[in-house]
């Protein structure tokens, strides 16, 4: 019985990675949920918006690295490039809105038409990103790699099990917390934020109160661009950047937004962590943890892995199905149904 080592193993392989992944999903799901709340459709182009923003950040980072930068102190150079990426993505989504979605708004089109239009936008963005940066894996992380490396941890504590806490993970959690605090402050305390909530709540009455819908829509897109780029860059720093992976990220992000309750920002965050923890939890081989806990000689023979990592998307959708069966509006009450 070795609780301490078991706990460290669990922390190292499940809790820390899942928290970082959950924070990335939460940022992505917040973007999806904002679009759903205010423009009233599920934006299928969200994953590729993230990819586009990340791509711009990567290109800027490479430029800075070519100029001889190697991280801002311990932090990655990409943070410096992030505002550029957000600005470029902001321009892209507002351009898309002008070119595509605004037409449907003036037609008072039904939301499903926007959804299908967003599918087209998704393919175009997908193409742009692959055309510019290629389909391969790209790495752009630099600066200090670990906050605590496994070896230092072992030396520090004398435990058998190591604990690695990567800079990208710490950065993800910190940035996500800051972004969420800023977003909630904006939505609940500022006049513009309140007008966005009012518009999402009751469009006609918002119009009668003198709230300009075009302005609300534009600010929403800008916030979504910032959230998507940030989420994409954090994911890319934590793992790696590959356009196809980002396209696939759409699935857990939607699962998170729906599980939490579409249109509800708190739900999006909650959903992100529910999905992340279940994905990591179900696909992690628990043998090590159980070996520490089990009495001597009782070590399990198998890996104690419920599903292979190839099936991780099945987990998000399993959770999604269960939640929708018992709570159709999501864990927090969303605006769907």
């Amino acid at each position, binding site marked *: 019985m070795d609780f301490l080592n078991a706990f460290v193993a669990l922390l190292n392989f499940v809790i820390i990675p899942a928290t970082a992944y959950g924070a990335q999903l939460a940022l992505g799901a917040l973007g999806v949920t904002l679009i759903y709340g205010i423009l009233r459709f599920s934006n299928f182009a969200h994953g590729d918006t993230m990819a586009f923003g990340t791509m711009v950040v990567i290109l800027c980072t490479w430029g800075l690295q070519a100029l001889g930068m190697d991280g801002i102190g311990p932090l990655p150079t990409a943070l410096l490039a992030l505002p550029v990426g957000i600005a470029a993505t902001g321009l892209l989504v507002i351009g898309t809105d002008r070119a595509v979605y605004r037409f449907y708004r003036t037609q008072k089109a039904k939301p499903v038409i926007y959804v299908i239009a967003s599918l087209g936008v998704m393919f175009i963005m997908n193409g742009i990103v692959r055309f510019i940066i290629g389909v391969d894996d790209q790495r752009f992380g630099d600066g200090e790699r670990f906050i605590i490396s496994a070896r230092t941890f072992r030396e520090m504590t004398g435990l058998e099990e190591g604990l690695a806490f990567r800079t990208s993970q710490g950065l993800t959690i910190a940035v996500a917390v800051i972004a969420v605090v800023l977003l909630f402050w904006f939505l609940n305390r500022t*006049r513009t934020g*309140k*007008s966005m*909530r*009012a518009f999402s*709540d*009751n469009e*006609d*009455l*918002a*119009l*009668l*109160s*003198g*709230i300009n819908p075009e302005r609300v829509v534009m600010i929403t897109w800008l916030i979504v661009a910032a959230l998507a780029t940030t989420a994409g860059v954090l994911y890319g720093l934590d793992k790696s950047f590959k356009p196809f992976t980002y396209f696939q990220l759409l699935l857990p992000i939607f699962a998170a937004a729906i599980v939490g309750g579409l249109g509800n920002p708190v739900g999006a965050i909650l959903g992100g962590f529910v999905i992340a923890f279940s994905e990591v939890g179900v696909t992690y081989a628990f043998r090590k943890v159980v070996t520490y806990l089990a009495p001597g000689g009782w070590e399990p023979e198998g890996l104690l892995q419920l599903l292979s990592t190839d099936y991780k998307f099945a987990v998000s959708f399993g959770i999604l199905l269960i939640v929708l069966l018992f709570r159709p509006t999501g864990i927090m009450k969303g605006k769907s149904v």
Partner: protein
Amino acid sequence: MSDNPYQNDRGNMDFSIVNPREGGDMQPSPGTGHAMSTASAFLIGDTMTGGYGNGPNILHDCTIAVDAGEIAVIVGPNGAGKSTAMKAVFGMLNVRQGSVRLDGEDITDLTPQARVAKGMGFVPQTNNIFASMSVEENLEMGAFIRRDDIRETMEQVYELFPILKDKRRQAAGELSGGQRQQVAVGRALMTKPKVLMLDEPTAGVSPIVMDELFDRIIEVSRTGIPILMVEQNARQALEIADKGYVLVQGRNAHTGTGKELLEDPEVRRSFLGG
């Protein structure tokens, strides 16, 4: 020529007995016999004809008006076009003929938002609050077009509807039907409107709450804001009305002061149940 036999021209050509020079044929108008008295109107929808989108006309030469400082009530049977007339005045109906004037200014071609900016407050019949937002936020959003300090107006609204002050941090959607209506009226008052339009403010509330709402509406009116409202409860509404309009099938059927309409035998028979 008319069918009037006295005006038949037959045999009229014998100039030895009739003078060929025509006499005057101008006829004085008999008038409509029911004065609309709209000369002093602060807000008037004047002989409006129109319908939704490209659909058929629902209103036919319908006139409704409210004088400064008064309460005007639109009543009538179901489907008479009461709410439609209200929407026409507020710019949410395709008015094909007629005009809408606010304080003498023609606003027929303005959007509803522009009319709000001109000083019209409108409380729709349904979905008239931001249900997920707190009462206070509802009031803040009502004053969105204002850039000055809104606290004083908010205090006035709280004075008018004291219950809202107690519940100001609560989500408006969690309130009772009568309280929601108070939020809705309060929201519309936040722009400091020059005229307030209420579309069936007492729909779906209990009779006791209805009485209270009517009292509140009279209080709002006492602050000097003219009120134009549509009401299902014709008798009670006409009792507090300075002027009443009875609409039938999109046309003005009867017009008069509330008291006149309440006493009018035909109005009593057809709308007030004897």
